[in-house]
């Protein structure tokens, strides 16, 4: 299991995959902190 607690996370999302807000909710539920969040559109 990956440990997210107290980790600083760069959330690189994609509109047609998993976007950043969804990644952020997952990270926060696991105790991590999002320090960068971006969602690519038509990468």
């Amino acid at each position: 299991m990956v440990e997210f607690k107290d980790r600083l996370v760069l959330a690189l999302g994609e509109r047609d995959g998993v976007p950043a807000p969804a990644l952020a909710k997952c990270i926060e539920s696991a105790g991590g902190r999002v320090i960068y969040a971006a969602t690519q559109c038509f990468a």
Partner: protein
Amino acid sequence: MTTRRDGAIRPVVRSARFALAHVPGLVFAGSKPRRVLGAGGPELRAEVRRNLRSYGSAVAYPPHQVLLGTIAPEALRAIPRPWHQHPVAAAAARGPTGSLIDEDTFYAWLARADTANLVHFNEEFAASLQDGSGGEIAPSSSGQMVGAMLERGEPLYRSGEAAPIGVVIPAHDQDEALSAAVMLENLAAKATGALALRRLLDDVGEEPPVEYLLGCGEEAVGDRYQRGGGNLAKAMGELAGVRTAGGADIKAFCAGPMHGMLVAGALVASGLYRRVIVVAGGSLAKLGMKILGHLAAGFPILEDVLAGVAIDVTEDDGRSPVLRLDSAAVHRIADGLAPHQMARALTLAPLRAAGLRLGDVDRYAVELHNPDITEPAGAGDVPAGNYQMIAALAVQGGEIGRSEMPAFVEAHGMLGYAPTQGHIASAIPYLGHAVAGLTSGPLMRVQFVAKGSLFLGRMTSMGDGVSVLLERHPEA
């Protein structure tokens, strides 16, 4: 099947028309090419020039023929990909639902669209336009003057030619919102939107008179104090020769046109207007967006067309497909951005509310970007992704089994064929075929689903979307 409260007017979609402009010389003015060619030097520029398509190739390109209405989207399944290797035989530039004009014709319209004297051609080019069109073209300037203007303006190229044939100058030397690049972008949108509008009016006529125009493109028209002032709708109407309508713009990224259809339908349903036309021009910025991917794959530069659209929404005419406002859905602030959250809000929820199953919709018109354009650049097959998501919801809802997903997609979906012109590609490319299918064809019900990436403007991390059902008229 179609419910109607007493006194409520039923809005219908009477027709849709597309105006495509083949502008290979303007690929260099696209956002990505500008940045990439700056770094890549003259060899890259020459390589791009070698890989530009001819007008004939653009006309015969199967996805364009689908947009022009001569072949059905379903026909693309029988044509091997990549489609540019299988041109349509004896293809015409004019089809039932649109026309594809060549570069010179586009430049003539760019000049007609120019009310601020910003477009200047060199004498030789201006003379050649004069011969061809017979209409009034902007006065030309001497080669010397154009040369001077090129220092501050945007060069205009013809395909394959290294020297510019003209220039667009800034409308103001200090105001960034009136820079030459912005002026070219906005004039290109204005011209292509007006062309679609004119084509629609020529085909369908002026009864009832158009009362309102809703612009819905992604350009920004304004100046330093009001960068997004807008209302390109009225400018497009003016250029198209419309005198009777007022207008305004709806801004919602790629979901603009669908928001426009919703608002147009509501205006007609309220009785305020009898006829509203939703109109948008093309996106110059998106030309050549996937240029590196196409060069690497040995493809021609496929993003060489601007696309404009006009959608005719009127009061009930007894036969045209009905815009089911009671089944419309908009992505709300509380809804999420993930694909399944979007699909639940836009596809599942309104169908459930109408007592319908996902399988009850004959066709879903989703984001219809041409996968030959997007895949070489690693951006995947966007329509397929949308359809797989809808099929997955059908599985979750117990309508089909996991193994039936491909069959569901085949039955209710289609291959993408729209140029990657942003708001133009989102659901509405299917409108012409939908109107035909819902009147003289066998279709009963089509759901249009558009999405917008609001997060790109950095004002929010949200997405957006709109969906609406178009249904066969009960008397058709």
